[in-house]
């Protein structure tokens, strides 16, 4: 890759296609031009690779409004996809109103792992409108849920971290993010249904 002049015309052509550079045939008179273009693009790609990630993180967190937390190095790619499947999340927002709002209010008072917050973040984004209705019920119930969900969420980053490394590109498939979110939501649902009585107690105390 480093020595373009030693490559054959075919190899240069495939490289040009790879970088989506408009080009004609690689012949004697055009070779030097294309080698130069490839060198420019490759050096630009390196620069762009370093710059792009932090800015995309900032965009994500600016939309969050809950908390600003530092971007975890392994999770640079994750925020991009949360924006993508915000469309899919809307379908689940109604079904998950109660327990999701529990998790969304949970983010502010607690300090936990950054990954956990990212998971909560996208559901909270969807449910800000429903959050107010359930806030009284849910606000008192953060602590027991936190510890159990934290362990589940910690399992998720390990898995997704492994997935991210071999891919090479910056994007994780959408289906994978969706799957992780579904599993996490299912886990939350299970937790909530198994703990239905305590919220009522808290509600009484408050009144």
């Amino acid at each position: 890759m480093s020595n373009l002049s030693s490559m054959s015309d075919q190899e240069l052509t495939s490289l040009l296609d790879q970088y989506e550079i408009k080009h004609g045939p690689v012949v004697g008179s055009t070779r030097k031009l294309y080698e130069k273009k490839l060198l420019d693009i490759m050096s630009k790609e390196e620069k762009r690779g370093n710059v792009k990630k932090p800015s995309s993180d900032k965009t994500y967190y600016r939309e969050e409004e809950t908390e600003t937390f530092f971007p975890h190095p392994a999770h640079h790619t994750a925020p991009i996809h949360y924006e993508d499947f915000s469309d899919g999340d809307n379908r689940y927002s109604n079904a998950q109103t109660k327990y999701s709002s529990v998790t969304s209010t949970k983010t502010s008072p607690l300090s936990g792992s950054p990954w956990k917050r990212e998971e909560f973040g996208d559901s909270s984004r969807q449910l800000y409108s429903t959050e107010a209705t359930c806030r009284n019920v849910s606000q008192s119930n953060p602590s027991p849920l936190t510890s159990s969900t934290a362990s589940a969420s910690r399992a998720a980053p390990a898995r997704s971290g492994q997935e991210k490394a071999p891919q090479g590109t910056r994007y994780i498939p959408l289906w994978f993010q969706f799957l992780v979110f579904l599993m996490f939501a299912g886990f939350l649902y299970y937790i909530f249904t198994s703990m239905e009585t305590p919220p009522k107690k808290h509600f009484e105390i408050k009144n």
Partner: protein
Amino acid sequence: MSSTSQKHKEFVAEPMGEKPVTALAGIGEALGGRLESNGFDKAYVVLGQFLVLKKEEELFRDWLKDTCGANSKQQKDCFSCLKEWCDSFL
């Protein structure tokens, strides 16, 4: 001042035949000399290069700059001259 020079008008008016490379708009003595030293001694050879670069403006201008050191205006003049010639005769 007209947008295209006299040279341009003369070049695009007829088939180029064996015209020298200095007949191209934007290519003067100095640039012509450099092109000739690189093997592009006739206008049709430069045409050949233009066509091999798929008549792409950016590619052709970059090539011209690399080969004979043409500035932006000269690149533009040569490109538009060849393009118009092709539109009429190719």
